[in-house]
């Protein structure tokens, strides 16, 4: 049985259909939450924000123009909300990397590598990227967004999407090298 498309759900939501809203929420809330929590690094804030995101979807459904996928539209709203929340926090800059990229402050890279497997270290370094790099890595690798869709969500040219992703990966390689993993790239 074919499930109702997101576009149809949005049409129903614009009609005030709460059931359609529940279906859309059930379908997307986890991914939107994860996208936001990766940006703001705080679950409680992320929960507040996704409530705002879906309320915005409820309000704006009648204006959805279908130029992009519904999930792309929602991630763009989520991003806007997350960045607004980050701006209210003076201690968090969008371009700052986490100091806790590799948490074993006392250990040198070799010791850290011995203690943790490679997968764990890669995930720690992914978490340690700046928010700007985290968001593009997540949009591409986790949310399966194309170059065009990332450009629409982030509001940058497609060429910039490609170079930003390249530099995010390059930065990841540098963090991994500092953690004792030499990947031979770039």
């Amino acid at each position, binding site marked *: 049985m074919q499930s109702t498309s997101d576009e149809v759900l949005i049409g129903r939501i*614009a009609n005030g259909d709460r059931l359609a809203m529940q279906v859309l929420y059930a379908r997307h809330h986890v991914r939107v*939450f994860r996208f936001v929590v990766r940006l703001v690094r705080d679950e409680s804030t992320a929960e507040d924000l996704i409530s705002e995101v879906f309320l915005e979807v409820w309000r704006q459904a009648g204006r959805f123009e279908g*130029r992009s996928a519904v999930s792309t539209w929602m991630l763009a709203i989520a991003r806007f909300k997350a960045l607004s929340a980050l701006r209210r926090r003076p201690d968090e800059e969008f371009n700052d990397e986490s100091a806790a990229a590799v948490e074993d402050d006392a250990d040198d890279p070799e010791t850290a590598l011995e203690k943790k497997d490679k997968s764990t270290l*890669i995930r720690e370094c992914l978490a340690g990227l700046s928010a700007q790099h985290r968001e593009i890595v997540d949009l*591409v690798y986790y949310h399966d967004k194309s170059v065009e869709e990332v450009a629409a969500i982030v509001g940058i040219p497609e060429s910039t999407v490609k170079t930003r992703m390249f530099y995010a*990966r390059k930065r990841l390689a540098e963090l991994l090298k500092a953690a004792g993993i030499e990947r031979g790239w770039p």
Partner: protein
Amino acid sequence: MNVVSKEERLEIEELLPWHATGTLSRRDAERVSQALAGDSELARSYELVREELAETIHLNETLGAPSARVMEKLFAAIDAEEARAPRRRHALDLTRRISDFLSQFTPRTLAWSAAVGAFAILAQAAIIAGVMLREDGSPAGPKLANATSHGSFAVVRFVPQATADEITKFLGAYKATLVEGPLKSSAGLYRLRLAESQLPPTEADRIIRQMQEKESRIVGFIAPASE
């Protein structure tokens, strides 16, 4: 063996993450596949991309999900909005129905651009049909029934290839208006008002036959309907 030039390698290198997730266009995907087959350095780089992809998914999947509190909060906010401004929603309901109707006939992008032009005409039809809000601001349900109960009617299903523009022209040429749909009893069927006055059955049949025969590029099915 490395057969890809330095410039091309950099270009391909930038596309590898999207190649790994399968979100490249067919043309770019083929280009990347060919480059990977002929360049061991790129192939090695692609393995790193796949590693990053796997770990990013793993990382995100361990982030958990929001609590049930979020949904409760959301629907409480929605209830509060509806209690505050129910009228806006009913007005929106009409525009949405028209947009939904239009979007069924064309590829999505074409539908949305065509909908802009067609909207004004269909909105006018909707006003004629009396589905706008009453002056006192109460919902328009009963008025819709009154407004559509006089005249001569047909049920129609448009062919999927018909564009919004063609349908709009078709409606204009016959001075017909769409008053209801899609009908619950059958997906894709719409109620069409042929005339605001009650036509003799032979005249209504003639118009319907003409629509069926001459407008087959737009009309897939049409039959007389009672008031």
